[in-house]
């Protein structure tokens, strides 16, 4: 018995070898940059010269002087508030509709998934730009329907929504996840509920939703993290304009870092993004005990 334990232990040390690549990667490409960006955020640094320590100057400028930052922060939050729930609600709705014995479900699942393939690709961003131009096909369609034309890209009140639409258009991957989760809900639960005489609506709220909350939660967190860092669509479609109405934090970060070469200042922005993400994640986690239903499974 004793020898067996020792033997296992010896073998288990092998695990460290297997995770070594990750450990190196983590230290070099995740932990070091993470710490370094915090350090840079207290410096003035422009790659050509060494970073010089300036204390809290960057943060003070960011919060007290730089109106553009506040605007970007607002734009990013609005973007997140539009896209994340928009995407998830639509995904859930369609998944629920499709979660029936229907013919051709696979075909539709495929079709719905296609836009998600392109993610933040430039190709689709360019397509969006062309479609939503003043003389583009969308406005032509509106005219054909006798509706007034909209300045999708030129109106500062609307441009952000045009970009949000591109994001929401890609709800397919969340939908496929939800659909898979819905199929996993044990039928026995519904049968039991039916015996108790529960209504369909009640079943939905008391069984379906609780069963898939972990998935919703996972999606919510991941989508929020992504939305808070979005860059490509705003960069390609509107370049942050008009009037900075689509100037998301990701773009601000890029411009400060790689256009103005204020790497220290940009690092401060990146830390603000990080802290926002932490806070949002914390809040979501904290609230999750209230609404996310966890099965008991703890292997680690």
């Amino acid at each position, binding site marked *: 018995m004793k020898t067996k334990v020792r033997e296992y232990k010896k073998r288990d040390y092998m695990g460290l070898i297997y995770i070594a690549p990750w450990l190196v990667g*983590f230290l070099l490409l995740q932990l070091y940059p993470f710490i370094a*960006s915090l350090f840079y955020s207290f410096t003035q640094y422009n790659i050509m010269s060494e970073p010089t320590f300036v204390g809290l100057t960057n943060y003070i400028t960011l919060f007290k002087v730089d109106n553009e930052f506040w605007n970007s922060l607002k734009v990013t939050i609005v973007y997140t508030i539009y896209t994340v729930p928009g995407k998830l609600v639509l995904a859930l709705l369609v998944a629920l509709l499709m979660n029936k014995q229907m013919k051709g479900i696979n075909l539709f699942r495929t079709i719905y998934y296609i836009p998600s393939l392109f993610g933040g690709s430039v190709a689709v961003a360019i397509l969006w730009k062309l479609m939503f131009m003043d003389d583009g096909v969308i406005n032509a369609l509106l005219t054909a329907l006798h509706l007034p034309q909209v300045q999708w890209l030129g109106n500062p009140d609307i441009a952000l929504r045009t970009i949000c639409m591109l994001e929401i258009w890609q709800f397919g991957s969340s939908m496929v996840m939800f659909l898979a989760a819905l199929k996993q809900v044990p039928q026995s639960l519904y049968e039991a509920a039916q015996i108790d005489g529960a209504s369909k609506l009640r079943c939905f709220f008391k069984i379906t939703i609780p069963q898939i909350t972990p998935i919703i939660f996972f999606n919510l967190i991941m989508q929020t993290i992504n939305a808070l860092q979005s860059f490509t669509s705003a960069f390609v479609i509107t370049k942050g304009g008009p009037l900075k109405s689509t100037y998301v934090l990701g773009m601000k970060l890029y411009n400060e870092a790689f256009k103005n070469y204020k790497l220290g200042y940009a690092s401060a922005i990146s830390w603000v993004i990080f802290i926002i993400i932490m806070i949002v994640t914390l809040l979501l986690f904290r609230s999750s005990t209230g609404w996310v239903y966890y099965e008991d499974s703890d292997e*680690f």
Partner: protein
Amino acid sequence: MNKKTKTKINLTLTYIFIIVVGIIMVYPIIWMFFTTFKENAEIFGSTKLLPSSYSLSSFVEGWKSNGGNQTYTNFFINTFVMVIPTTLLTIASCAVVAYGFARFKFPGKKGLFMLLIATLMLPNAVIIIPRYSLYNSFGWIDTYLPFYVPALLATYPFFIFMLIQFMRGLPRELDESAYMDGCGTFRVFWNILLPLMKPALFSAGLFQFMWTYNDYLNSLIFINSTSRYTISLALRLSLDSESVVQWNKVMAMAFIAVLPLIILFFLAQKYFVEGISTTGLKG
């Protein structure tokens, strides 16, 4: 109205809804395809989907890129030279690391696993600047190393996590019996677990391929010279100023750019769907 007709109406309404939304979903892509055959005048202010004539000239012309001596042949080669090794390295390294986490109880494992999960939420934004400066000091700017090395070093916690989840589903008895037969840990991984993990590896590979292929920000930052440009960068270049944009050419190249993903998706749909469904389930 009896129950049967009611469900029937319900089902019809559902179908109509799903079909209408489905059309909205794919219409842009279909429109993109037909736009490649249209002159600018035909594109603007028109709702017509089908072009007045079909000719491949926009593809031929667009392929040449911006008059430069780089063609899309180069850009495609560059893209695959960047994407394929990145994908393969990601799968290889993540599988090994996942094996380490899923099958061994080494000291500090819990803590390290928590770190792994924590990095899942580490935003790229916060590490990109020091990474840039790091790669710059290594002389890696304008090479594909900023893509290969993170893949080799398994800095994609998402895939590790996904593979761990998958591996947990494989019975441990397999390992045990192999150990009894005198196999070493690597043999167990290579001969026993890896073949069983094929579907999960394939899914992970597909996603990594897709994400790297679509990537724009990292290419924008790390790649400089046109001879190393990837398709994303080349497409952005095609919106060049100082000439009139020929949208059919731009759309032709944009369409060609998304085509590999569409083809891949139809060939490997099962893995896409499985990949998505399994990753989320226990998150």
